[in-house]
């Protein structure tokens, strides 16, 4: 249904340099995943925000990886090995390459309260590695 599609549909234009496809592909894309800190069993410690969307990367790494995802040489070589020489060598993986920080409010074990801004909490771009 439309609602389910919304949950699993990729984030609009997550890889800034990737051309827009009219038809859905299962290529490497960025997806939303809203989670609450109580689900992560961290709500006794992180009191704000209640929920957050770390996002995740999922999909197959296409051959034209470098132009789409800025992958390094090694990734292209590994893909050639996988396709032409030895398929036991794994295919390159679709993983996050850029992140955004997140501000949280924490209750420390001694009862003090801390506002912290942590790096690399939200994925914003995917790559193949």
């Amino acid at each position, binding site marked *: 249904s439309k609602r389910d599609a919304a949950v699993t549909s990729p984030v609009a234009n997550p890889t800034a340099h990737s051309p827009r496809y009219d038809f859905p592909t299962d290529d490497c894309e960025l997806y939303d995943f809203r989670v609450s800190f109580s689900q992560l069993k961290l709500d*006794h*410690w992180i009191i704000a925000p209640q929920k957050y969307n770390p996002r995740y990367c999922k999909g197959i790494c296409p051959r034209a990886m470098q132009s789409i995802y800025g992958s390094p040489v090694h990734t292209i070589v590994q893909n050639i090995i996988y396709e032409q020489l030895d398929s036991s060598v794994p295919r390159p993986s679709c993983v996050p390459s850029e992140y955004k920080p997140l501000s949280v409010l924490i209750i420390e074990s*001694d009862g*003090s*309260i*801390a506002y912290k801004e*942590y790096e690399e909490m939200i994925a914003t771009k995917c790559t193949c590695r």
Partner: protein
Amino acid sequence: LFPHASPAEAAAATAVPDEPLVDSVMPYYGSRLSLKLKALSEQSVGREARPRLRPESRYVRYMKRLYKISLKQGRRPDRSASHVYNTVRLIAPRDECLERSEESSMQDLSYSLDRVRAQEQLLKSILLYSLDKDQATSFASLCNLDVKEQEHAGQKLCSTMHHSVSFRVRSEKRSRRIWVEIDVTTFLHPIIRSQKKEIHLLINLTCAENGEEVGGSQERRVPMELFLRSPSLLLYLNDTSEVAYQRWPSSARSESLRPSLVMNNFLSLLKSKQKGPMHGRRRP
């Protein structure tokens, strides 16, 4: 990313983990758990392991308001230079004793700095008073705060660290709670830089009439019992550790993002190879 593990917390974490989060993580990472992941799993494991002190709800509400203000400031492109902090800590006083008279109050307070880490550089420190008043009264006073560091008996005889600051306290009728923020940065900076795990302060607070006439009547002096509640310590810090968000990342970090020359050469070679068969020419 999260607080470093103290020995007690590390022991709790290495106990047989029964939390699903840690079970799912340990097999993959084993001993190479990064600091971030270790603290994350400890917080998840340590949930029942040790009782957690809970702060007063008034201070939680104060910090939630500061959290929202910081989020708004952080998103503005022209965010003011004042928002250079990436950490704010509110520390309640531990043990206290108080002497109070009509015009003044003397407080002997200690604050635990255990959670303040070496990489957290102090930008600003504030003594935060929370005054609860009944809405019928209004007052205005000029107050003076004298703060002195209480050295332990074993150390120096008399304390040389002394600071005095004047401030105004005013309250209209409708407000029920007033927050009074007194900046003591210049006083606390050397103490916190010395990375003591606890500081002991002697605070002497005196308030006089404000001397101003408002609406034809002399404003009442602030009742000293309002200052019964000891002040909390608010520290604005810049955490320079890797896990904390840096507003102005060091040049070393941005260096690695530039695409390498090798890549371009390799790609042009790859593209030329993939254009089609090499027309029978075999290169050695």
